[in-house]
């Protein structure tokens, strides 16, 4: 589903954020990208989203080489990739329902489709009763649930999550992870950057550990701690 081949990313000023990274992520996998701050986790997420161009190497997402993708085709890539970020990225002026519907509105979906799809996904994240509320009226965990709902409402085959539990307490984080796990079970491939030990250890999924932009460990049913050893 996602393939990185000798990917290197060097930022202006010479900072190497990714160095010769090669990864093969299968359809339906749940992969954690772990490592300390600055290890290159977020950069890899951004590269997979074509938020940044690669310096060297190739990235295939859903069978397409996104490194040679013309700029005008980037929106089409993003329609098949859901994203969840640490800071939720919700629109404060829109209600929960409107925030989720927004993702479908910009794609030009008809209202008759938007309504039921929004209801369905809000039900999935457990926020059906809060559709009319504004983000400021919700807790951090609830806001992140809205963000997850928005990224999943279009039923993308891939979801990229960058520290989705970074702003949440452990108990709320567990709730979000359960939600992501549930989405993963529908066949959605999930790549999640995190430095939350407890979550990675509890989930026991594939772990790709990064250090200064390089992959130092890639194991199935991995744990976070081993990176520290």
């Amino acid at each position, binding site marked *: 589903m996602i393939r990185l081949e000798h990917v290197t990313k060097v930022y202006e000023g010479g900072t190497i954020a990714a160095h010769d990274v090669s990864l093969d992520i299968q359809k339906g996998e749940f992969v954690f990208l772990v490592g300390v701050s600055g290890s290159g986790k977020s950069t890899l997420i951004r590269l997979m989203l074509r938020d940044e161009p690669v310096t060297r190497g190739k990235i295939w997402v859903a069978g397409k080489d996104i490194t040679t993708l013309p700029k005008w085709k980037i929106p089409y*890539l*993003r*329609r098949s990739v859901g994203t969840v970020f640490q800071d939720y990225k919700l629109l404060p002026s829109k209600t929960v329902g409107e925030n989720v519907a927004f993702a479908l509105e910009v794609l*030009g979906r008809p209202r008759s489709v938007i309504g039921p799809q929004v209801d369905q996904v809000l039900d999935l994240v457990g926020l059906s009763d809060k559709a009319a509320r504004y983000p400021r009226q919700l807790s951090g965990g609830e806001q992140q649930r809205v963000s997850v709902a928005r990224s999943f409402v*279009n039923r993308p085959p891939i979801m990229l999550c960058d520290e989705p539990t970074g702003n949440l307490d452990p108990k709320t984080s567990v709730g979000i992870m359960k939600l992501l796990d549930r989405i993963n079970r529908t066949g959605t491939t999930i790549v999640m950057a995190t430095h939350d030990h407890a979550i990675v250890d509890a989930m026991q999924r594939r772990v790709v550990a990064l250090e200064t932009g390089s992959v130092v460990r890639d194991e199935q049913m991995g744990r976070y701690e081993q990176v520290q050893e």
Partner: protein
Amino acid sequence: MSRVFFLIREAMVNLRRNLLIVAGAVLAVFISLTLAFGALVINEVLRLNTLAWQEGVHVIVFLNDAGTAEVPADAHEALLAEVRSWEEVKDAFYVSKAEAWVEFQEIFEDQEELLKIDPSALPASIRIELVSIELHSSVQFKLEQDTVTVLRVSTASEQIEQLQILSRGLNVLGLGFSIVLGVSAVVLIANTIRLAIYARRDEVEIMKLVGASNWYIRIPFLLEGLIEGLVGALLAVLTVWVVSDRITEATASFAILRLDIGNNFIFTRALIFVLFGAAAGVVGSLLGLSRYLRDSEGTGPEIPTGIV
């Protein structure tokens, strides 16, 4: 249909949310186009009046009295016939001493002192309308050769030429003025759109995240610019039209100049100005959007922080 509705709604929400910034842009277009349209109307008033002054008598030839030792009795008729034969002359007519006295009395009816002059002192004259005002010097030269019959040649050409120079100057000034003001309107709209994008950067970022195309993001901003330009231009032409109409009405009885330039002129030019306002709005929006949407393939760091 749902897309169109969504885009229009987004543009309207944006206009409502940034009311102060929008008002600034509309005001900029309004002021620029009011001044430019006003200059155009003033120029037209001058052009019409110059034209009006060009119609009628251009050259007056005052004549020595006929039937004297020097001037034969038929000298006036002979000169009139000769003048009428010249190709520069469109029309010419004779004003006798008696007619000159009647005219004099009409002109100076309020000035009794002047009316006490001897009527015989007023010379007869030939009034000449030229094919073109530029020909006055050649006609004047020909007339001045006949020193026997011709007493003095007077032309209105100087004043007309001055008016024409003024009109040409105003044309150039008006054009320059319109260009400068038009450009400033475009820049101000571009600035407004950039401020609007900055104010909505989170929304734009999210639109990009969920896969909205650049054009899809652009359209609400283009609509916003279009509306700002249209409203500003409509207000400008309406203001100039109302003001010019009121001035014409108020001065109808005593104006020296002809101020009524006609609705046809106003409407055709107004249409051009409204179209210009709309185009300025769209171009301004495109300029405001260009740096952001051209350079950026990402979703975050390229949000503009400066203004034009």
